[in-house]
């Protein structure tokens, strides 16, 4: 044992000898010539890019004035020396210093986090008379497309006290910008990267001689996140929606749930957050007309209106409640239930209706009859099967669930037996207590389009240097075979049959399928709904649109889908035309050409 003790001591002594005698020169030079200063080398934040790689969010350089002084009194002196010549708020600087102190002992304090060119030149030119200060540069977030997709991209803001407390030690320092909402928040860990340290050699006079590369550790930049959005289509969709005062729209790839475009109107410019927003401006923005900060795609709940008839029809079919071919009612424009009169949107009435024609023409009276026999739990189960009442799993935080009124809900609300079948008459046409998000309706539509799968809508396709993320999908139980075929035929009829509520928005060269909706709104004009997929025979994309306070879905929302399809399948149209021309030319040659 004694031998082991001596050996281990000898190891330590050899180490000391190496440091103090063999390598003495080198360390002595470090110690004697230069003082080492270290500062944080901030990792540049990753970009958010669209599906083609076009940057939507990047960084621009901006400047800050820092001081190596660390006592409150010194910082006050430094701030005062600036305040004597420039509009600088000393009290605010000290407030930030108090939050900063003790957390970031190794980095110079950012006296002015956002210096303009006057400040920069003032500090640089008067360096000899001012207290020690440096102009440092750092990246600031830039939202290149301003208000475009603002709700989806989110924004960054200065890290808050609670975020600092919750994060791992040394991950954030006061003054850092972190994702606050949307994809900026969701992808924070990918985007952030890892800070490094820059070690500077400083001579006795305080002049920086250069960087000591050996001791420095470069930052690991944040990784770019590639989104499923297509910036051109996004611009197109938002442009169409922006002719109205408020609304939301989303386009999904029906097979995997990739979001090609997503809009919420009115919008705002996230650059305002990146440059620092005063409390007053934030309040103003929060309370502005139309509440622009509100994400109407996933955080707003609307009655699904007649788009919900797809679910009601599904409930009828899988439970075999009614023979779909049977002419159940003769619509005269209204139906009496008890002592109340329930009106169809078509005041003149639709005439004799079976399930197919009731869907195509969106006859309310047919569905009132269905509501008389529909059980609350059966309809709720069908809605749940289509993913209503649950989060779609969208990869931006803060999604709403919506509401599914089942028996338990009514029992809770009105007491057991305190409610009547009358509720169901409104529920089957999506006007009762059912509440959904625009995204949920789009997903329902995608499920019909893709053969019965609930996809997970998502914005993140992949992260730089990684394989695309696989998103799970789940089967809608019962949505297959004849049931599925029936619903698809009905939705196709809405656009392609002369009686269909969206017939006027059909395209000659592209068959699509859809369902209109008009959500009655006690506060004003109805909300217009439309959800659709195309092409009808081999669906690629699904869309859902809600326009607040406009009117009929077929009139106001459906044209947006038509124009989007037209734009999206434009190339397809060209292709078709070219092929047709080509075929014609070939035929011409075959028929009458020279032999």
């Amino acid at each position, binding site marked *: 044992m004694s031998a082991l003790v001596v050996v281990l001591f000898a190891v330590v002594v050899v*180490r000391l000898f190496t*440091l*103090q*005698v063999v390598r*003495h020169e080198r*360390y*002595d030079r470090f110690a004697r010539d230069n003082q080492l200063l270290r500062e944080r080398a901030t990792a540049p934040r990753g970009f958010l890019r669209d599906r083609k790689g076009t940057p939507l969010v990047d960084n621009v350089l901006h400047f800050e004035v820092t001081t190596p002084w660390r006592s409150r009194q010194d910082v006050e002196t430094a701030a005062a020396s600036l305040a004597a010549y420039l509009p600088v708020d000393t009290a605010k600087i000290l407030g930030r210093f108090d939050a900063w102190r003790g957390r970031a002992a190794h980095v110079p304090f950012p006296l002015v986090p956002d210096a303009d060119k006057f400040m920069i030149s003032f500090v640089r030119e008067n360096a000899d008379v001012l207290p020690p200060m440096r102009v440092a540069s750092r990246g600031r977030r830039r939202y290149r497309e301003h208000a475009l997709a603002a709700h989806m991209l989110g924004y960054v803001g200065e890290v808050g006290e609670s975020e600092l407390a919750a994060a*791992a030690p040394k*991950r954030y320092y006061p003054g850092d910008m972190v994702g606050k909402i949307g994809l900026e928040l969701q992808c924070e860990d990918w985007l952030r990267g890892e800070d490094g340290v820059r070690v500077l050699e400083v001579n006795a006079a305080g002049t920086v001689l250069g960087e000591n590369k050996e001791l420095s550790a470069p930052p690991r930049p944040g990784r770019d996140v590639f989104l499923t959005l297509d910036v051109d289509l996004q611009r197109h969709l938002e442009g169409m929606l922006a002719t109205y005062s408020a609304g939301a729209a989303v386009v999904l790839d029906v097979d995997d749930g990739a979001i090609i475009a997503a809009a919420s109107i009115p919008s705002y410019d996230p650059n305002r957050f990146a440059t620092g927003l005063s409390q007053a401006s934030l309040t103003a923005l929060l309370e502005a007309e139309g509440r622009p900060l509100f994400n109407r795609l996933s955080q707003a709940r609307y009655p699904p209106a007649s788009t919900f008839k797809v679910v009601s029809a599904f409930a009828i079919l899988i439970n075999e409640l009614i023979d779909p071919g049977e002419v159940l009612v003769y619509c005269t424009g209204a139906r009496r239930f008890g002592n109340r009169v329930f009106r169809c949107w078509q005041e003149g009435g639709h005439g004799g209706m079976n399930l197919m024609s009731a869907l195509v023409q969106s006859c309310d009276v047919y569905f009132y009859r269905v509501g008389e026999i529909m059980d609350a739990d059966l309809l709720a189960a069908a809605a749940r099967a289509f993913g209503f009442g649950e989060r779609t799993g969208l990869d931006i935080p803060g999604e709403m669930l919506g509401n599914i009124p089942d028996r338990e809900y009514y029992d809770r609300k009105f007491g057991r037996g305190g409610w009547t079948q009358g509720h169901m008459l409104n529920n089957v046409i999506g006007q009762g207590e059912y509440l959904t998000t625009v995204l949920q309706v789009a997903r329902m539509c995608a499920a019909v389009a893709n053969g019965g799968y609930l996809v997970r809508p998502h914005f993140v396709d992949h992260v730089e240097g990684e394989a695309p993320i696989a998103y799970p999908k789940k089967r809608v139980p019962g949505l297959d075979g004849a049931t599925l075929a029936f619903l698809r035929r009905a939705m196709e009829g809405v656009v392609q049959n002369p009686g269909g509520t969206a017939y006027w928005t059909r395209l000659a060269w592209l068959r699509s399928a859809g369902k209109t909706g008009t959500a009655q709104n006690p506060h004003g004009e109805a909300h217009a709904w439309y959800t659709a997929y195309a092409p009808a025979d081999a669906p690629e994309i699904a869309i859902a649109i809600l326009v607040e306070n406009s009117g009929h879905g077929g009139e106001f929302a459906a044209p947006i889908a038509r124009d989007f399809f037209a734009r999206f399948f434009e190339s397809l149209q060209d292709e078709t035309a070219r092929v047709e021309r080509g075929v014609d030319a070939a035929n011409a040659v075959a028929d009458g050409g020279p032999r």
Partner: protein
Amino acid sequence: MTATRDFDWVLLFTVAMLCAVGLGMIYSVFHPAVGAGYTVETEHLYLQRQLLWVILGAVALVIGFAVPMRVFESLAYLIYAIGAILLVVVLALPSRGETQRWLSLGPLRVQPSEFMKIAVIFAWARILSGYRGDPRRPRNLALVGVSFALPFLLVLEQPDLGTALVFLGLVIPVLYWRGFRGIHIFFGLSPLVCALLVIYGDNVAHNPWPFGVFIVSVMVVAYVRRRHLAESVALVVSNLGVGLLVPILWNDLKPYQQKRIVNFLDPGADKLGAGWQVIQSKIAIGSGGFGGKGYLEGTQKALEFLPAKHTDFIFSVLGEELGFFGAFIVLLLFMVIIVKALAIAQKAKGEFASAVAVGVGAYLFFQAVVSVAMTTGMAPVTGIPLPFISYGGSSMIVSCFLVGVLLNCGARWYEY
């Protein structure tokens, strides 16, 4: 008074020298106070306090010497229980900063983990002494295992990985001394070493060699001992199992937990924090050269680099000012104490006293070597003070008390 005749004056003198060096270094750290960001009061404050700790240490030393060993033996389990309760209490109290190591008793702040080191030495010595004290008996091994695991896990929870490992550094020599076979210690430790090597290979070295070399040597050991088939199979299986399981468990850890372990294994990785301390400490020690810059003449101590330069990193100031020569002398003094501790363990007739002497030697050895290795960048940065020299009451009192006990064993070596 045979006790007086066999009193080890050299040992006492060595300890006194180390304490004197400590006082001198602590004065130097804060001198000159003005200009380095301290007031003149600070310059004297730490020196005065350390002087108080030395005096209290002397009292503790006298107590350790005067109380008969059989009293310690009979109180061993009680002391252990009190220490364990204090450790639980310190964890249960609301957190103060990142870690929970201190317990406030009026104006004093004590570190229960330091006092626990006394408790485990006594407890293990008692378990492993007497005619039933063979460490190979399953009962004894289980008792030692449990009494080791409790403080180890509690201190790990603080979290203080370094101090937790001190308990490992104590239990192994004591077990070995009492007749536990080295090969079995290797068996016990190998899965832990294996886990650390897997993590090191994956996250620091980025190659599988550390684990590969280790597992091959494990297999060689197993082959050499193939006559003990069950043991060999268990050895290989447990190490391979750890090698397969650790990467899976690793992914379940939170990123900051992973980072903490990686920083422990590779302090250079955290260049803003611990790595920076090590770099600065190496510059200080290296710039000291053979003869040192001279007492009070150090330049690196004045810079902002070392938050713990009067406690865990005091050896870097010592190395800078006193040079290789001074550092070597200090290490020599430690070696004298430890070699003497082992000699006392040989000589002592009482099994309890003998085991205690080894425990004390292991304690001082482990702390001194790890502390110096840390400041020279050979060992992870952990909160381990340099006995007798670092500023701090708990460490000083515990070290002095243990030396008193050691003197006690040496002077009354003939007692059973």
